[in-house]
């Protein structure tokens, strides 16, 4: 299941290690996560649902869905998809009893900082760089072991203009961003904590209190920040159909993480649900990884993603069925196939149009929902904006929310793209810095430049959704006096 040769990527598997999984020794390579190493070893059932005892498999791969919780070295409820595997680790699945009462107290550390940035995707890193350059102290926290958010799995070249690095692969952009923020770290401007989750917001006022933890190194952080920028990204949407919880049904982004970050194939043959850009891009990347794609089905009558992405798939022999969806996925403990059927104008399945697709993997690429729970806990004004992907924080042009000193950027503020996430990050970083150090003509000019570029990027028919989402958000912000 490990990919050895790949047209775009190289996987260095330098050090072989082993760990114990339910008492059995499993081989892994340094750099893999526990769940990816288990996947490579053919273990696809990672847990069972508590009530009905249904098997659960890898779904999101980025710590958002909880289907991979296990006990690791005695620590309960560890998300194994974002926890790097270590030599000699003891991993146990389906441990239903409560942990011992003597769970060792954690090491506490207090951190006071000017600006806390939660999430080190393109938005968060850009915010940290922008603020770090301006002489304020910055703490950048991400619960994944690697910096870069979704960019670290995007092997395709980006669109846009040369200035926004068009024609460059996402993985390369992630490397460049990481280099820049590491440089600021070296100079003591930015402190970076990977593998650390921010788990709660505990009150504000002149500064904000938040809790964060690195479970595996058993450290808990009490963070006191003058300003907070939330750049937590998004989580993949589920679709309801019988069998949607079978191991082998993955989020498309989860599959991308598995194959492009860890070099592990999700299966042999895939059914892709959704022909937006994510579905089209991930299907093409599956082909590059040597995985067959049976077809792409799309409920809408038209392909939602760029036609150039669709064309790449078609000329490689992958059919795209619009006005089609999945009726059910079947199999015992894992996906063995799926029934797809045609939809009529009223979104009902057309009787007799069913087709049995033999596959071991079903990928859902049916949209994303902003991750904004910490913002809501902090009490920001929010609203349901369908074009943004769900509930989002209302924010002004400079990315500040209704709670003073709390900012939002990237997918967390409405689903969009890496290019716009980077700009929103820069704007949030700049506006948080300005609120600490004051505004002058050069910061005003910079701000204007960023906002103008952002507006330019949202022009054109494919930017219409984001444009509408942001229009509603900004209008509401101005009504609320934010």
């Amino acid at each position, binding site marked *: 299941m490990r990919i050895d*040769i*790949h*047209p*775009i990527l190289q996987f260095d598997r330098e050090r072989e290690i082993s760990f114990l999984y339910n008492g059995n020794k499993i081989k892994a390579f340094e750099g893999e996560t526990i769940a990816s190493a288990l996947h490579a070893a053919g273990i696809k059932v990672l847990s069972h649902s508590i009530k009905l005892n249904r098997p659960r498999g890898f779904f999101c791969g980025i710590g958002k869905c909880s289907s991979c919780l296990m006990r690791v070295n005695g620590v309960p409820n560890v998300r194994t998809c974002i926890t790097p595997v270590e030599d000699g680790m003891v991993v146990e699945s389906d441990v239903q009893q409560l942990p011992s009462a003597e769970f060792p107290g954690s090491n506490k550390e207090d951190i006071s900082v000017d600006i806390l940035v939660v999430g080190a995707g393109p938005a968060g890193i850009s915010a940290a760089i922008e603020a770090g350059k301006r002489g304020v102290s910055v703490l950048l926290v991400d619960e994944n072991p690697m910096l870069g958010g979704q960019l670290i799995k995007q092997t*395709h*070249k*980006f*669109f*846009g*203009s*040369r200035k926004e690095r*068009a*024609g*460059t*692969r996402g993985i*390369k952009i992630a490397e460049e961003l990481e280099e820049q923020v590491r440089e600021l770290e070296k100079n003591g401007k930015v402190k970076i904590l990977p593998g650390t989750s921010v788990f709660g917001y505990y009150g504000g006022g002149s500064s904000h209190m938040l809790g964060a933890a690195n479970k595996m190194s058993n450290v808990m952080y009490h963070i006191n920040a003058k300003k907070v920028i939330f750049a937590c990204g998004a989580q993949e949407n589920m679709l309801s159909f019988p069998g949607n919880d079978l191991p082998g049904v993955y989020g498309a982004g989860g599959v991308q993480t598995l194959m492009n970050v860890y070099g592990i194939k999700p299966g042999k043959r895939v059914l892709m649900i959704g*022909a937006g850009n994510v579905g089209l891009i991930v299907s093409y990347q599956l*082909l*590059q990884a040597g995985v067959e794609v049976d077809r792409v089905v799309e409920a809408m*009558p*038209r*392909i939602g993603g*760029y*036609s*150039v*992405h*669709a*064309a*790449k*798939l*078609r*000329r*490689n*022999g*992958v059919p*795209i069925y*619009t006005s089609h969806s999945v009726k059910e996925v079947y199999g015992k403990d894992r996906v063995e196939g799926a029934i797809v059927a045609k939809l009529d104008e009223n979104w009902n399945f057309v009787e007799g149009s069913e087709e049995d697709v033999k596959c071991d993997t079903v990928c859902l690429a049916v949209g994303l929902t902003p991750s904004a729970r910490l913002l809501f806990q902090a009490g920001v004004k929010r609203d349901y904006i369908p074009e943004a992907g769900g509930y989002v924080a209302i924010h002004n042009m400079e990315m500040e929310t209704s709670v003073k000193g709390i900012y939002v950027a990237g997918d967390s503020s409405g689903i969009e793209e890496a290019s716009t996430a980077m700009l929103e990050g820069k704007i949030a970083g700049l506006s948080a810095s300005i609120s600490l150090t004051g505004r002058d003509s050069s910061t005003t000019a910079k701000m204007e430049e960023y906002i103008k570029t952002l507006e*330019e*990027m949202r*022009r*054109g*028919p*494919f*930017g219409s959704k984001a444009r509408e989402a942001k229009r509603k958000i900004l209008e509401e912000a101005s009504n609320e006096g934010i």
Partner: protein
Amino acid sequence: MKEYERTGVISIEEIRVPSEEQLKRGVAITECIQEIPCNPCVDACPVNAISMEDINSPPFVDYDRCTGCAQCAAVCPGLAIFVVKLEDESALITLPYEFLPLPEKGEEVEALDREGRGVGKAIVRRVVKKKDNTALVTVSVDRKLAMDVRNIRVLR
């Protein structure tokens, strides 16, 4: 709704087909017809043969200016640019290729159309490996297939 929006395959009617004269010199054909925010092809062209009203408009190639150098094809993130050149008996097609194994010069491969169907054989004339891993492969195919062949399958 346009047919390609349903199928993902653009038809020959949607492409500005160059004249025989232009094709004999060899020109870039941009199979990129939607309004998407993208323009690296414009910047890549050394002779300014590609123009665009603004970043969202589809590219327009001045076939009389284009030299067929394929630099635009190498950067295009949509892998949507093909260089076509007519010879006496055959057509040379340069296409972006991102799969393994890479074909080798002189190798016989299968020529595929826009729907991935085999439409004949192709002989690999040139393989240019790029630093960013998108290779440019030039194959020769039957002259009649010049506007049909857009992919290859390595038969090894």
